[in-house]
Each structure stands twice: as C-alpha cells, then as structure tokens.
C-alpha cells in the first residue's frame, strides 16, 4: 500500500516558463484515492496537466515508479469540453481508450471491443452507450468518460472535476463508483475538484492548493475544522 507511484521533487508548474506554483514535493501511493482541492486559479488543472505530460514542468522532477514501461494514465476530462459536431456514440468515445495499444494502420481487434463493452458495463454506461455522446446528460457523459479511462487499463485514474454540472444524486453515484474501482482494481486515483463536500468521505489523502502553498495530508486531518482554521489564519496572515 505504501509503495510510491509518483514522486514530485521540488516541482514548479506553470505556463511559458512562468511558475504558477512552486516547491511541490510529495509522494502519491499506489492504490490510494487522492483529491486535489483548491479555489479557481489555484493551479489544480495546471498540476494535473503537468502530471499527465500535457505541460512541461517549469523546474524540478516527476519520478514514476514504473520500471518496465511508462505509467498509463486514464484521463477523465470535463465532459462539456467536447464539441457536439462529432457524431460519436458513447461506445465510440469509450473505444478511444484502446487506441493507445493499437499501432497506426491496424484495425481494432474484436477482443478490445468486447473489453470496451465490459468497461462501459462496469461504469454503468452500457445501457446508453449506443446513443450520441453529445446528447447524453452530464452524469451519463461522465460515466462514458470513466469507461474510456478504464479501457486504457490505467495505473492511475485522473479525473478533472468529474462532478461539475452533475446533480447531487449523480455526484454521489459517480463518487461511489470511483471509490469502488479504486479499491477493487487497486488503481491510484487523482481527482481534481473545488467541492470539498463531494470528496471528503472518499479521499484518503488531499492535496490542497491554497494561496501558493501546498498541503498534502490525510483527508480527515486536513479537512478537520481546527486544521482548516489554522490554514486560513496562515493565509490571512
């Protein structure tokens, strides 16, 4: 359980060489459920994109535990960002997760299609996977995108605001499912949100980005009333 899967060493993140956040040093453990919390503009998405390799670190290092190959990230972006002009069904979108294992010019083998159906089923999205992705509700899109992340056979599941625009009932269902997957498949979860209440019952560890400072502690400790009051006092001071 305490095997580190990602280690950040004095990491600075930002855009065009300008740091947004500096001095990030922490280890994320295999199979753990981690929430990245913070207000708008605190650097949550920048941190996520840097971990995913979409942005280069401004300074410092990201070490991964994978010896034989690079880590596979199952990425669940925000569902509203996709252009509805694409005539893709939920299944088509979920199937994209297997593209990383198929070389260019090769066709998708039947067993990968079967696996995609299994992932849709696991994410509770099989029933509406034949419908146009653009026409699904926010919660349904999230489930399809989670299924797509699972089809990559991920070491780490990375979710960007998975409950944004989703009602309270669907939020609880999505969070239950992610937590269950994390435990069953021993997948490390990194979940970005600004909604404390949505994750406090699920996350084991919280990375809290607050006014240029980074707090990385067990969720129960960090989100306790006393600790929060102390952090806010620090911030105000």
């Amino acid at each position: 359980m305490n095997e580190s899967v990602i280690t950040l060493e004095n990491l600075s993140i930002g855009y065009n060489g300008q740091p947004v956040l500096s001095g990030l040093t922490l280890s994320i453990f295999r199979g753990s459920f981690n929430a990245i919390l913070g207000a708008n503009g605190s650097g949550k998405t920048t941190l996520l994109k840097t971990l995913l390799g979409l942005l280069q670190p401004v300074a410092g290092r990201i070490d991964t535990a994978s010896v034989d190959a690079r880590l596979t990230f199952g990425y669940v972006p925000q569902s509203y960002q996709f252009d509805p002009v694409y005539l893709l069904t939920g299944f088509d979108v979920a199937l994209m997760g297997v593209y990383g294992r198929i070389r260019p010019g090769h066709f998708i083998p039947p067993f990968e299609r079967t696996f995609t159906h299994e992932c849709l089923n696991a994410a509770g999205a099989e029933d509406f996977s034949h419908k146009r992705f653009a026409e699904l509700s926010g919660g349904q899109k999230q489930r399809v995108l989670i299924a797509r992340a699972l089809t990559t056979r991920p070491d780490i599941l990375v979710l960007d605001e998975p409950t944004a625009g989703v009602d309270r009932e669907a939020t609880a269902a999505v969070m239950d499912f992610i937590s269950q997957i994390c435990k069953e498949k021993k997948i490390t979860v990194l979940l970005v949100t600004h909604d404390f209440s949505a994750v406090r019952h699920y996350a084991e560890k919280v990375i809290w980005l607050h006014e240029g400072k980074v707090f990385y502690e067990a969720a129960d400790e960090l989100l306790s009333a006393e600790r929060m009051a102390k952090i806010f006092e620090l911030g105000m001071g």
Partner: protein
Amino acid sequence: METIQQILSFDFLLRNSLYTSVLVGFACPLVGVFLVMRRLVFMGVALPQISSTGVAIALSLPLWIGFKLTEFGSHSAHALAFVGSITFSLTAILVLAFLERRGRGQAEGRLGSAYVVAAALSILLLSKNPYGEIGWLDMLKGEVIAISNFDLLLTAVTLALVLAVLGLFHKELLLVSFDRDMATILGKKVIFWDVLLYLLIGLTVSMAVLSVGPLIAFGFLLIPALTAHLYAHNMRQFTLLASLIGGATAFFGFWIAYRWDLPVGPMDVVLLGVLYATGWLVAKLLPIVLCHIQKT
C-alpha cells in the same frame, strides 16, 4: 434518359470531364468532413482560392522571365500548374493551421483576408496574361471541359490516396481531432497526425482546383459534409453519406448542365446548395410534422 445514356457511353466526347467531376465529388467531401468537424469551414473557402492563385503565379512565371507558355508544351505547363497549386495549398494550410492552433488574433479575419487577396491577385495576373483569357477564366468559372487524361489520372490517384490514408489512419485522425489531450496522453504524435491531415486536405484541394477550378472545390469540400451532418448518426455514415452526396451531385449536375447547355461548375454548386437547403428544411420540419400527426 437519352442524355444519360449518351454521357455514360464510352465514346462520349466529354467523358474525362464527367469522370473527373464525379471523382472530385467523391474525394473532396472525404476531407471536407474534417474541416467541418474541426470548425475550419472558412479554411475550406479560402484554400481553393489560394490554390488557384498558386496556379496563376506558376503559369505567369515563364512569362515574367521571357518565355511563352506554348514553348513548354501542355504537359510542362500542367506540371507547372500542379507545382504552383500544391505549393500554395500546402503552405497556406500549414501556416493558417499553425496560427489557428496558437489561437491568437481573429481566425475568420485572417481567412477572409487571405481569400479576398488571393482572388484579387488571380484576377490581376489573369489580366496580364494572354493564356489566361483562354484557360484560367474557364477554370475560375468552373467550366469542366478540357480535362486531359493526365488530369483524370491525377484525380483518380489522389482519390485513391485520400481513401487509403483515411481508411488506414482514421482512428488516429479522429482521436487527434476530437480530443488532443487524450491523444497526447496515449502517446500519439499529435503534430504528426495534424500535419498528415493538413497535407491530405491540401493535396485534395490542389487536385480539385487544378482539375475543376476553385468554385467546384469550394462547393464539394463543404456542402456535402454539411448536408450529410443533418442525417448521419455516426462517423462512418457521415463520411460515406458526404462522399455519396458529392459524387451523385457531380453526376446529376453534369447531366443537367450538358442537357441544357449550362456551365458544369456553377450547376454542381447550385445543385448542392438546393440539396442542402432542402435537407435542412426537411430535417427541421419533419419532426414537427410527425409530432403534429401523432397528436391528431
């Protein structure tokens, strides 16, 4: 019916024009669907015009350095035109796509300016070139008459190439268009696939402009894809339907133009426009009518 039999017969005098129109009709929408999906519709308008300016400049070059085009022979002139067309298309699409990706400035403004300057430049070059009155004006008007065997072969080879590349790499091109971040995370070379798609679009546009002129190229790049989008349910249907609409319209446009002695290019484009408008009306009105019938 008699006219259809006539234009389908093997000894039909304008058979190369017919075959080329239909091939362009099938090929252009295949890449046009990517222009529609990537919201690069204006590029579909500007690119053929820029490509035809490339042809105009390439064919003016010998005159500027003191040669007459007739001294080169028709094949050399054609090769020159092809080089001009493809150089301008590919340069324009790569530069415009790069600027588009950077997301700075107004893309519509850039494309509109490129279109109007390219059109004006074509007319200027045309006015100072004795060959222009004969050949270019027909090309700019979309008169598909003098199509050589070389043109036909070039069009067929380009269509085959576009089909092969799209068929083989469809999943990569689709993934990079739909979700660039996911493509990067999965280890795909996003820039490579972008450039490949743009080269494919540039090649198709060059071929279409050289064979049938910018007017038909405009029409066939965009209108079949926009029409197909109204009815298709998935990407396969979208691509196939757009290509079929393009090919079928090219055939019937040629037939009508031949039957009533009209220019083929404008006929094709008007037919595509009518089809799109009708398709749009039916797609919007049909659900309302069906709902009304169900209620009554």
